[in-house]
């Protein structure tokens, strides 16, 4: 088991309770999307996965280790955290320094760092910009550099906050491909996202949050088409699902659990048969 969250509650020092009796289990190698409106507790929850926050009540186990017993730096070797805005984690003068920063701080031998860096550069196609300043790069490139600086530590678990926000179609597809490859390598991946169309297309397991609680937890197809759960989160369903619901208002027998274009097309074309 990669991550086990048992009945946690988290109250910020300001007195705001952001998580209330949250429990979940994420198996090793799972790809999961955490969704919900702003203020639902998504970011608070994922900050518990790398020990950045410790629960007020309950406990969080990552690879069987209770997060309260380790420092954030120690957890960083197991759990990589990629922020939504790459500028929040890039601060050095070249891409190379940026990527080497983490491993250097863990006293990993230089030749090992070099090898790890080569692997990551190859994987993310960053070789040509190694000597550039991160701030001279495009947004898509900066996002990849931020990811590289995390992947170089070879974490088993990877958390990405809003990886597709503000990205164009080609960048989104690249991100989906990178996530899927990392997942196939056996890594556990958790993303926080509002992007229902992205989730409808790639269909990770979905955890739906609202007001500090888990509202639904299951297959993308089941969660995104759960009218009642979606309504509680202020999330808009995927366009295809919304269309199915709208048709079903008139034609009661029309299925409400459609999520992909292919499903909808097949259903519509099959109506006469």
């Amino acid at each position, binding site marked *: 088991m990669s991550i086990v969250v048992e009945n946690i509650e988290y109250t910020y020092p300001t007195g705001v309770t952001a998580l209330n009796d949250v429990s979940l289990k994420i198996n090793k190698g799972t790809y999961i999307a955490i969704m919900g409106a702003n203020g639902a507790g998504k970011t608070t929850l994922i900050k518990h996965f790398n020990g950045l926050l410790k629960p007020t009540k309950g406990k969080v186990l990552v690879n069987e280790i209770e997060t309260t017993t380790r420092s954030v730096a120690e957890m960083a070797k197991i759990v990589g955290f990629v922020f939504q805005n790459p500028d929040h984690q890039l601060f050095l003068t070249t891409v190379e320094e940026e990527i080497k920063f983490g491993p250097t701080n863990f006293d990993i031998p230089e030749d090992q760092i070099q090898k790890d860096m080569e692997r990551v550069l190859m994987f993310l196609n960053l070789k040509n910009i190694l000597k550039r300043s991160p701030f001279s790069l495009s947004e898509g490139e900066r996002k990849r550099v931020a990811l590289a600086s995390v992947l170089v530590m070879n974490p088993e678990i990877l958390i990405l906050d809003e990886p597709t926000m503000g990205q164009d*179609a080609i960048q989104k597809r690249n991100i989906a491909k990178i996530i899927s490859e990392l997942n196939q390598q056996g890594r556990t991946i958790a993303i926080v996202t509002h992007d229902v169309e992205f989730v409808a297309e790639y269909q990770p397991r979905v955890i739906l949050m609202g007001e500090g609680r888990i509202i639904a937890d299951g297959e993308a197809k089941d969660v995104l088409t759960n009218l009642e759960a979606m309504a509680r989160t202020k999330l808009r369903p995927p366009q295809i699902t*919304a269309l199915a619901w709208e048709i079903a208002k008139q034609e009661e027998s029309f299925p409400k659990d459609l999520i992909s274009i292919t499903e909808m097309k097949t259903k519509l074309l099959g*109506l006469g048969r």
Partner: protein
Amino acid sequence: MENIIQISDLEFSYGTSKQPAIHGINLNVNKGEYVVIAGLSGCGKSTFCRCINGLIPHFYRSGIMKGSVMVDGLDTREHPLYEITQKVGMVFQDPESQLMSLTVERDLAFGPENLGLPREEIRARVEEALELTQIQHLRERAPHELSGGEQQHVAIASVLALQPKILVLDEPTANLDPVSAVAILDIIENLRVQKKITVIIVEHRLDLVLQSATRFLIIHDGALVFDDKPEKLIAKNITPDEIYGVQIPSLVRLFMQLINEGIPIKQIPFNVPQAASVILKELGLIRSSSE
């Protein structure tokens, strides 16, 4: 119909690059149009926006601009930026970059104050801008304490206080969650309907904006490669999933695929209720064609 923007043979190269960022652009926009611009990152969309609001050539002086841009009768090369900003308001992706005062009200008053307008006029403009963007309740708040969505409302209001005829928005919802994005887009649509403001918007989320668009532009490698009504996406027999890397909303893709299957649908819908009514109307057709 009155042309409010006229662009002829526009080309621009930044000082740092020999390749033009945009080239060969010809475009006339009518008053009150809602123009959606899409294209990959780095395709020249932002450069194009800077040409409309006069930042090019006035601010990017080391670059080379060819051709001409007229906004509401002003040639952008011949008129200073402060005159152009009264015609064209610009809203950026990151609202923090255009807010700087300690209260929302002061931020809204900043532009009109700098034009040297009388006190009563400034007051009236601030009130109108607060009302149009529905943020009267935020007037005393500090912009930097607001949420991203609220900040973007303030950024739009501060531009409206200059009473522009044209609003240029460069990915205004890129950093916003879907609920805040829809709120911003509703305000913009309302400005067009109520104030007849011409809207030019760069937006990746075509599923949210195409239904409002009177015109859809795609910029690719600095050139204008698609310029038509969104409905014409089908007429041009375009590949269903994306064109020039621009992702077509799933609703539109569904209808393109149904048409390819021989279902006689003439009109592509851009929102869910429209799509449902087309399907309900055509259900008979779908049934008979699959028999």
